[in-house]
């Protein structure tokens, strides 16, 4: 089974299976079993209580006046009004988009480029792949700490270049409130590009040989073939990649905690960290729930159209 096929399996098959036409296509010979129901009962219960029940609770609490403790009297959008008047949240929320756009563009570009390069029948492909994929095995905590050290003005890159004799060299982005968020993008691209490369490479390897033969017959240069023929064919896969990274961006927490801890000040804060801080350190359940609900809404805003169009594509 080629690398990256499992993602196709998970997403596409799932969509197909849950799509409209499945019920009738379901296997007619499958037998009923009491045991199967008993086995699924805990799963259903866990999903209902821990996932959907809990999510519903959080969304509801975000519409109350809860502060230290949950309160249940409905109060409409008050928490949201206060949330979006909180400077720290506005920074965190804005950062999500800034970080997201740059991270998606960078990761998709680098990942796709690497996939194309490796697709050109490169020697030592295995060695290159090993180098490009190992960051995926490393936790965001270690990733964040490592980049924090590398970019630290006192011991890292700046210190090193100055030591070479270029005394005026300045690279202190990680310590600057207006630049720290960009260093997170760098670490994000470093960590995630391999994943996109693996997915895109699997897609490239699946391209019909006939198409490549036609391209050769026409005498189209390889780079133009990729740019105008092959990659446009893989657009659905690229959309999947964008969705994957976008969801990871909304959820990101560990990386910012380890790398900048949201600082300097709260200049590189992200929603995920805002929620955890407000919930467990500042004990402001209402604000934390409102912020968490915005996170949930952001994920839904990414996933819902994706699922919708994928299902529409499947059923066509």
């Amino acid at each position, binding site marked *: 089974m080629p690398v*990256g096929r*499992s*993602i196709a399996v*998970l997403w596409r098959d799932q969509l197909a299976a849950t799509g409209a036409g499945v019920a009738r296509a379901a296997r007619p010979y499958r037998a009923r079993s009491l045991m199967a129901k008993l086995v699924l009962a805990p799963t259903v219960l866990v999903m209902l209580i821990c996932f959907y029940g809990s999510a519903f609770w*959080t969304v509801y609490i975000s519409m109350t006046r809860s502060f230290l403790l949950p309160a249940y009297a409905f109060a409409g959008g008050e928490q949201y009004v206060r949330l979006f008047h909180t400077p720290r949240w506005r920074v965190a929320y804005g950062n999500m988009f800034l970080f997201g756009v740059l991270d998606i563009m960078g990761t998709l570009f680098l990942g796709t480029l690497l996939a194309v390069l490796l697709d050109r029948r490169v020697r030592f492909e295995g060695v290159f792949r090993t180098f490009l994929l190992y960051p995926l095995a490393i936790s*965001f905590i*270690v990733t964040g700490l490592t980049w924090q050290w590398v970019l630290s003005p006192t*011991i890292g890159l700046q210190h*090193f270049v100055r030591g070479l004799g270029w005394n005026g060299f300045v690279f202190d982005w990680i310590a600057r409130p207006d630049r720290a968020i960009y260093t997170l993008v760098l670490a994000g691209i470093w960590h995630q590009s391999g994943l996109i490369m693996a997915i895109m490479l699997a897609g490239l390897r699946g391209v019909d040989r006939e198409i490549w033969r036609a391209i050769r017959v026409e005498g189209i240069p390889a780079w133009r073939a990729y740019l105008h023929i092959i990659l446009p064919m893989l657009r659905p896969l690229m959309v999947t990649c964008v969705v994957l990274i976008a969801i990871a961006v909304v959820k990101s927490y560990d990386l910012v905690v*380890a790398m900048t801890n949201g600082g300097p000040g709260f200049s590189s804060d992200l929603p995920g960290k805002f929620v955890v801080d407000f919930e467990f350190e500042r004990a402001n359940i209402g604000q934390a729930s409102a912020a968490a609900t915005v996170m949930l809404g952001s994920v839904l805003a990414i996933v819902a159209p994706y699922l919708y169009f994928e299902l529409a594509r499947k059923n066509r």
Partner: protein
Amino acid sequence: MTAAGSQARIGRIGLYALLIWTCLFFSIPLLVVIATSLKTSDEVRAFSIFSLPASPSLAAWVKAWFSACTGLNCGGVHVGFLNSVRILIPSVALSVFAGSVTGYALSQWRVRGANIIMLALLLGAFIPYQVILYPLVKIFSTVGFYSTLPCIIAVHVLFGLPVMSLLFRNFYAGLPEELVKAARIDGAGFWRIFVWVMLPLSVNILIVATILQTTGIWNDYLLGLIFAGRENMPMTVQLNAISTTSTGIIEYNVNTAAALLTALPPLIIYFVSGRYFVRGITAGAVKG
């Protein structure tokens, strides 16, 4: 040589140059951390973390493992390592088991609402942890085992359920249905078919699932921070606490050694398992 030929040649050289540069960019952080962990504390201050160690020594590794400090606790990261192992083994075993049985029940037996359950699992995988952390804390507190080893294990099994179930469900759905039919005619029931027909066919997917869960749970930070409690603090949580301690002189050589020790288990799994690892990672990409 023709013009086209030399152009293709330049293209090839450019291609390799680009790949090698990217590989350098990818490996620099790791090399820097390794080099720093082999230095003495004074050496890190005097030069930069980019220089090579003058006389490499494992002293910082020993200190990181046995006596690195988190606040006033100076037990070293081996405490977190053992905690992580204690969390990891039951969590992986239980979540792989739960996922495989759920996937099997969903794919090979007629269960009303199977599609709805699958949709619920699929969408559940997208819910950010932050949305359900607090209610889960409340639930576990009510039951009375919040901040314990069983608590963090249960949480890992819980959050692993959607991806694990769907992974197995999709694998089992691809098996020919004659297998189960034949076994049923022979009088085998739910569990016998699972153990004697399904499991022997599942070796590959079991490896993928185990690797995915092992690296995911080992690298987890947020869940360990919230649910494990002080006594069971996993290695990632301890590492971050050690590295962000602001009191006293920061010992970068010890911190980098601690980071490497934390990164080592999943890195070893990656280097040993190769393709299985990539398959697992791509399948689990929605998690979190």
